[in-house]
């Protein structure tokens, strides 16, 4: 029995160690403004999110070269939530409570944002969310710098319908909330344009789906029935490569059956053999190939920062670029990093898009952006084939869904609500 004493000692030491290290977290004197970066660096989402972490580091470094913010240097606090959704909430809490960051730039998937949301609202933090998403949300604490469905999906469908004469639609997506919502909105939109039920095929596949044989065969069957058909793809990340490979091998080319994707950008293409993809489409608010002075400068800086002239830029990077610069402007305008003051100053802030025009933060915490449609080229870039006339204002609550048609988001008085029902004049789902 005596031998057990040392185990007891071990336990005791471990506990004390744990306690003491937990205690030694209290704040140091604040000489810098801390910016939290909450992107997965490991796990399944690392593939997309690592680049955004690097983008943020670049933007912060650049701002510091310009003399920092409010006379202080910016300091990046990088954490790794490891593609684990509960960990996102925990890390957000760590950033806000332990590191006292002024704002968080991060998240990619919808579920990670949903996981972080209660923490942000409880601790009154700020999140800049850079990815195109499903809408149906507007939080006081989140600024959505990616596209809402009306800034990506609807214009893309308009283009296909009007310019390519598409009459039959395949809505293919990964089974999670973004494709579900987007497809629901698109279905309602298509029906409002007179498309029949039998001309719409909806298909959902699990994450990372790799065996596309039967589904592509089905799409082919559906698409060769006479009318011009297009595939609207909300297939996520890793599942895209085998999907496009299968398309190519089953002889589905872009001129016969174009695929327009909302989740395939330059970065994803850099991991795909693009030859069989040439001519397929994507809708984004930014393409690396867009020829503007700002964009050329951004790409140059990126290549210098990452020390690799072959790296590409993509839409969420631009979203962070705009979001970060808007935050800087808002902090300067408010003269403080206090969340409420900055959030108030954010509304109405303007900053030039990399693709032309000026993005403006609207009352619903969304941006106004141009929508571009590009065709994939064999060098992994997009060639813009269509572009909205002006900027499209991000709409948090889709007008094509019956339950969200009556809801608006307006973070200015007197409404001051992200979920305001214009019929009942009530603000629901909010804690304030």
């Amino acid at each position, binding site marked *: 029995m005596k031998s057990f004493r040392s185990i007891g000692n071990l336990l005791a030491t471990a506990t004390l160690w744990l306690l003491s290290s937990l205690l030694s977290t209290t704040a140091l004197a604040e000489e810098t403004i801390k910016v939290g970066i909450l992107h997965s*660096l*490991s796990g*399944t989402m*690392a*593939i997309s999110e*690592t*680049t955004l972490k690097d983008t943020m580091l670049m933007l912060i470094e650049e701002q510091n070269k310009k003399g920092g913010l409010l006379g202080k240097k910016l300091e990046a606090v990088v954490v790794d939530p490891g593609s684990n959704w509960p960990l996102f909430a925990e890390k957000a809490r760590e950033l806000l409570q332990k590191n006292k960051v002024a704002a968080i730039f991060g998240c990619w998937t919808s579920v990670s944002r949903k996981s972080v949301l209660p923490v942000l609202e409880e601790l009154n933090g700020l999140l800049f969310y850079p990815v195109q998403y499903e809408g149906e949300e507007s939080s006081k604490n989140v600024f959505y710098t990616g596209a809402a469905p009306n800034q990506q999906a609807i214009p893309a469908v308009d283009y296909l319908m009007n*310019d*390519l*004469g598409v009459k039959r639609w395949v809505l293919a997506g990964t*089974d999670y909330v973004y494709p579900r919502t987007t497809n629901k909105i698109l279905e309602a939109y298509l029906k409002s344009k007179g498309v029949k039920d039998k001309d719409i095929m909806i298909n*959902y*596949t*699990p994450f*990372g*789906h*790799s*065996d596309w*044989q*039967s*589904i592509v*065969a089905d799409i082919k069957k559906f698409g*060769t*029935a*006479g009318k*011009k058909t297009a595939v609207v793809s909300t297939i996520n990340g*890793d599942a895209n*490569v*085998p999907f496009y*490979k*299968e398309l*190519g*091998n*089953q*002889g589905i*080319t*872009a*001129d*016969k059956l*174009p695929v327009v994707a909302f989740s395939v950008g330059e*970065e*994803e293409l*850099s*991991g*795909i*053999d*693009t*030859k*069989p993809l*040439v*001519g397929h*489409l994507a809708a984004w608010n930014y393409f690396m190939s867009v020829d503007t002075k700002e964009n050329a400068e951004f790409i140059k800086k990126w290549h210098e920062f990452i020390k690799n002239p072959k790296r590409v830029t993509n839409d969420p990077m631009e979203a962070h670029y705009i979001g970060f610069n808007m935050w800087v402007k808002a902090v300067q305008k408010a003269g403080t990093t206090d969340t409420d003051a900055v959030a108030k100053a954010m509304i109405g802030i303007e900053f030039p898009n990399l693709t032309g025009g000026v993005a403006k933060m609207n009352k619903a915490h969304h941006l106004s952006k141009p929508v571009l449609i590009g*065709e994939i*080229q*064999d060098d*992994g870039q997009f*060639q813009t*084939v269509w572009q909205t006339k002006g900027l499209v204002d991000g709409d948090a609550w889709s007008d094509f869904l019956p339950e969200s048609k009556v809801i608006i988001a307006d973070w200015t008085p007197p409404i001051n609500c992200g979920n305001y029902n214009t019929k009942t004049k009530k603000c629901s789902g909010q804690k304030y």
Partner: protein
Amino acid sequence: MSKRNNNPMLPCWEKPLLLLASGLWVLALLLAGLAPARADALADALNPLPTVAMADMEQAIGKLAQVQDPRVGGVLKALLEARLFYVKESKRVVFADPKDDGFKLTDALTGEALGEVGRFDVKKIPITNALRTVLNSAIAKLELTAPDAKQRLKAVESIIQNPNPEALALLTKQVGQEPDNTVREAIQVALSLADLSGSDKTLRVQAIHALEGNLNQEVRNRLTALQEKTETGDFIEPDSDIRNLAAVALKKIQLKLEMNRLGEMLFFGLSLGAVLVLAAIGLAITFGVMGVINMAHGELMMIGAYTTYVVQLLMPNAIDYSLFVAIPAAFVITALVGIGIERGIIRFLYGRPLETLLATFGLSLVLQQLVRSIFSPLNRSVSTPSWMSGSLEINSALSLTLNRFYIILFSLLVFWGLLMILKKTRLGLEVRAVAQNRAMAKAMGIRTDWVDAMTFGLGSGIAGVAGVALSQLTNVGPNLGQAYIVDSFMVVVFGGVGNLWGTLVGGLTLGVADKILEPYVGTVLAKILMLIFIILFIQKRPRGLFPQKGRAAEG
């Protein structure tokens, strides 16, 4: 041809622009027929391309296609394949082929070699999907008289899909002198379809009879269209005889199609099964023969896939042969890694199989992160050799994708090779001896240490080879291994640990069953049902499909 107004094809052309362009074409064709061909007509049509606006591109291409010149086909093809560039300074139109980091140029008009230039000195002449359609049909017309039967067939098929009167006129001329049977049949189909759209009833009836049992998609569409009703419930096709005949023909086609669909399903299942077998068979060796639960098996496949990537980087100009280099390279590299793992970690853990699971799981995390650090977390692009892309056409309704086809063959080959190694070589004999009774084998003078290392190396090498195959199907990224590890374990356990045949039969069975279920219940539910099936099956036969007999079974 001149009676454009009552042309029955018209409803098919939904795009007014296309209509306009082809109208111009017809006009241009007539003019070209009248005026003597000018020697520099091609230059006239070609030289404006760099400066033409996107909106006028269609017209410009139409003009180009009308030029009577043998070089036109080459130019149009180059444009379609994104090989047609212009030199930024001189606006000279050239063919450009990638060479190192720049391009090798050839003058599009004279064919004169212009040497190499950097990648920023030239610019591609851009085209869009709409233009690709125009180009395809223009090329199709030019290729109707190509010497290669395959090219002619492609041209005819393109016309079947986008019929226009002048192309049909060309076909009518061609049909008599066409030497190749397949091409002639395709032309007949195109002409029958044209007859079907005409107004002469006897011709139409004849056409339906001619098309009976034809599997061409366009035929099916047209026959189906004859059955359709308008909004008010009236049939679009007024003639009931034609309607009924079409219905009968359609039924025959449907029956044939069902048969083809079964074949297709079987192929899909086998190819999924083949992938499972490839992924699992290395595991069957390390897990089945050695009792090592190698959670890093998936990462060994990942290393194999990355080897393919590196090999392709090293030989960018010979992608077609890259796989023949990648397969042995991947085998050797992963086998070495495997031997390293065995010598460094696993040999200390024999007799404690569950602990090998923990150690190799840790190892798999390290390997994943290693790959992330070296190659970045992004997926890497692995090209498919040309001989593996596209599909093998059995008939117009059934085609087998070539990459899957080769992978089925490849997995059978690997299986056979492995079986031979275990059955016919000294190593195989020793491996089996050690697996059956380690102590006895040792007593007989077998160097069990060496055998263990070799066995693990062999299993790992096979994983690497499987990785090469997977690189042709899916992402090459740090998560590649994780996606397959659970499935591979299921296959090995289902088939029976320690039995290669079990793995083969198990993998193929699971693949085919999954694909049979998929159309009825969807992908996810099919997979769930397979898992439940495996769980229940193991209750019935706790040692898998082909259980080991004798003492080894008590392991």
